[in-house]
């Protein structure tokens, strides 16, 4: 038997097509392509939205029209043509279902393949699942339990109808329509998304979870998530994404807004595994996401993300630490392979006194990919005794990929304490031989070493998510040897 060489591994990696790349055959109700004010109005009308919402969208559209698409030093791609995208797609069947049995069996099969069978999750892990299939929610579970606690967890389209006062007050308050090109676009055309409100003093008894999928060829997806944790409440929210194999680029421009009022805590976890493009770098999802949270007094927001997918990831989940003693955390693993490009990081804006932030970012690059950490730590003059600790580590596999670190650190208060560290390394030959000698083959050894490298982040994920995340890491990295 010949040795399983690095070359073999590389080859195997290259031939490993996107594992979750399959296409669900559900008929879609789709808009013609293109974007103008009429389309924005039509989207709003189709969703039976009140006039204030339509106006809000139109205002955003006008802002967006005046903006230009940003350019970045470290990302290269063919920009999507915004007039060639259909701005609304919803599964054709009736969107409101009371139980899983009513869900299209085709859809359930999809989830089965993903290993995230809704039924099983429901039984085993006590997770309420709000599945977003394309753009409209088709199933919501555990409503009753949540209702009893006064927790609102529903599609945002429903919240617009039933809780306009909350939506009006908070939507766009953290990520304004003017924030950036993609946020403005999202504000104009957002299809659907999740809305969550945790009342004062309530600890949400289960992990809230949404699975996003992009399913319709050529359909941009514009999710909008709004999560409000009222004073003293706690919620853990999971977001996981996979997408079917596609030949053309798909645009995804989501907006996530988190509000943690006094003493509240929000834990927001993401496992993202959208189609990264094939080994030639063809296809793949463009993921331009704006995620931001606001922390009032003593509040805490913790972002955890495992990013393995997308051709292009542009994403900086951020925390505005407005209140005194607020805490912001960012734990991230970003894996890039083949021709993927990831530019991700966080912004920690310290406004209040005694605010603390922690940033742990682990980047793993393989193939021809480019993986950048870009972050900002800002201490305002009023933020006395602010603390930040940042650690950005990169692991390189192979000599065709790149790992980059661009931290911005701005301190305007003398009592600030900031520590930033970054390292770059590769998997050592001696580490591999050691594992081999103990009977662990190279591929498994790499998975083991990479999981060890990302451990500080994986540990932050809720249990049921951590398993899936580890699986994804292995799949994304199989065969990449330095």
């Amino acid at each position, binding site marked *: 038997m010949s040795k399983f060489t690095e070359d073999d591994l590389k080859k195997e990696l290259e031939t490993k097509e996107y594992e979750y790349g399959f296409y669900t055959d559900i008929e879609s109700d789709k808009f013609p392509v293109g974007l103008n004010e009429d389309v924005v109005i039509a989207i709003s009308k189709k969703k039976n939205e009140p006039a204030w919402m339509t106006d809000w969208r139109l205002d955003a559209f006008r802002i967006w029209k005046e903006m230009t698409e940003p350019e970045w*030093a470290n990302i290269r791609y063919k920009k999507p043509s915004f007039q060639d995208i259909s701005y609304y797609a919803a599964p054709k069947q009736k969107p409101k279902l009371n139980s899983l049995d009513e869900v299209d069996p085709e859809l359930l099969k999809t989830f089965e393949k993903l290993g995230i069978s809704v039924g099983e999750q429901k039984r085993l892990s006590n997770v309420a699942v709000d599945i977003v299939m394309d753009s409209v929610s088709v199933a919501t579970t555990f409503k009753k339990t949540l209702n009893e606690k006064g927790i609102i967890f529903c599609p945002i389209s429903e919240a617009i109808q039933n809780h306009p006062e909350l939506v009006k007050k908070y939507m766009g308050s953290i990520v304004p329509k003017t924030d950036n090109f993609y946020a403005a676009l999202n504000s104009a055309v957002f299809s659907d998304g999740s809305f969550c409100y945790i009342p004062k003093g309530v600890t949400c008894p289960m992990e809230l979870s949404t699975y996003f999928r992009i399913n319709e060829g050529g359909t941009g997806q514009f999710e909008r998530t709004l999560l409000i944790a009222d004073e003293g409440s706690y919620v853990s929210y999971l977001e996981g994404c996979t997408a079917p194999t596609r030949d053309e680029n798909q645009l995804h421009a989501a907006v996530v807004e988190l509000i943690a009022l006094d003493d509240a805590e929000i834990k927001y976890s993401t496992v993202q595994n959208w189609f990264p493009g094939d080994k030639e770098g063809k296809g793949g999802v463009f993921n331009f996401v704006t995620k931001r949270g606001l922390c009032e007094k003593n509040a805490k927001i913790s972002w955890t993300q495992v990013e393995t997918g997308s051709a292009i990831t542009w994403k900086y989940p951020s925390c505005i630490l407005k209140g005194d003693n607020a805490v912001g955390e960012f734990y991230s693993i970003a894996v890039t392979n083949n021709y993927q490009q990831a530019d991700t990081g966080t912004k920690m804006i310290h406004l209040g006194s005694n605010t603390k932030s922690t940033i742990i970012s682990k980047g793993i690059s393989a193939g021809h990919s480019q993986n950048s950490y870009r972050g900002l730590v800002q*201490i305002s*003059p009023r933020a006395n005794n602010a603390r930040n600790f940042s650690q950005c580590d*990169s692991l*390189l*596999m*192979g*000599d*065709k*990929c*790149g*790992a*980059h*670190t*661009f*931290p*911005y*650190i*701005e*301190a*305007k*208060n*003398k*009592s*600030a*304490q*900031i*520590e*930033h*560290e*970054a*390292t*770059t*390394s*590769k998997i050592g030959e001696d580490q591999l031989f050691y594992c081999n000698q103990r009977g662990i083959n190279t591929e498994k050894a790499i998975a083991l070493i990479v999981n060890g490298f990302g451990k500080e982040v994986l540990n932050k994920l809720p249990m049921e998510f951590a398993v899936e995340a580890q699986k994804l890491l292995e799949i994304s990295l199989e065969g990449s040897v*330095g």
Partner: protein
Amino acid sequence: MELKEKLVSSFLAFENKGNIDLDSTVHAIRLNAIHNFEKEGFPTKKDEDWKYTSLKPILKEDFSLFPNAEKSVGYKNIKDYLINDIDSYNLIFVDGQFNSFLSETTHEDCDICVLSSALARPKYKMVIDNYLNTISNKKNSLSELNTAFVKEGAFINIPKNMIVHKPIQIINFSTGSEKEVLLQPRNLVVVGENSHVQIIERHQNLSKNTTLTNSVTEIFVHKRAIVDYYKIQNDSNESSLIDSTFITQKQQSVATVNTLSFGGKITRNNLEFYHEGENITSNLNGISVLNDKQHVDNHTLVDHKSPNCESHELYKGIYADKSVGVFNGKVIVRQAAQKTNAFQQNNSILIDDGATINSKPQLEIFADDVKCSHGCTIGQLDESALFYMQSRGIPKKEAKALLLYAFANDVVEKIKIPQLKTLITKIIAKKLNVQLGFEL
């Protein structure tokens, strides 16, 4: 007239005054540079590289571009700014013009003289053609501005196998002969194989009038050569400095640049290292001790292009009052540069509310078998250490200064010329406003 227009329109007059040979290399270089500058203009805060430093407040002045040199400057006016207790070569420029009376140059074995004469003499044509403006960053519009008016500065040309035993001091004085003066010195340093040279550079305003210096230095370090370069930046609050230094290193060479910043209104340092060969070592050390509204912006680049090279970067800053520090350190490790060791560290202390530090340590890595790290800390003095010292009878002010000095010391320790080290220690003590009863 806006400064940019004034510069562009005076270009012809400047060239004519020098009776320029239209076929010469330098004419072509200048012409190309003025076009680039005209196209790009001065950088603004919208440029990523100028995000934290605005030139606006200094560019509004009505600068005199070609000041008359004050003839009456004598040794007594300048001696405080020279390191006197060492034997050194001195290149003294007053208001942009070489002062041979105050200088000590040489043409024995090596050339330590001035650029204007090198440009004029056929003997140096080869050196000028081979080196001048070959590594100055063409994307840097301020360097291009300097190149457009390239005329005077230090010309140091050290042949193979030569240890220059005396350090070289390059000092640019401005006397305030005009109300606002723009100076653009240009230095060219070529160090041959196996040679070793130490250079100290300083800019000094002798008056209360406004000076803006836009200086460019190109340094070529050949095989196994060693270059130690010290920049003393302790100018008056009416003086601003834009210093761009470009260094190309060949195999097994060692180049060290120490940037010691204590004064001036706005100081911007662009320091760029380019590697051409294996087993190169680059050292970048910096200290900033600032107060008032002083602003120092250190932009550094180490471009690792070949394997088995090292770079070590350590910048420390102490910021008081309303001073502003900027550190932007970039390390690029290109695909071919396997086995690179690159380390970068930026540590800062903010002493007062109102002081600011903006730090951006960047790594761009395209090779896998490398050891690269960067670290950045911002903090205060260790309160418990302070208390400990006070409890042993050391007054708070002195205790604080001692701790700050200790913080800066690992950079001071890297200064290899003892007299210079003493001078820097004194400057730091003065900046920290203490008199320590012992030699630091």
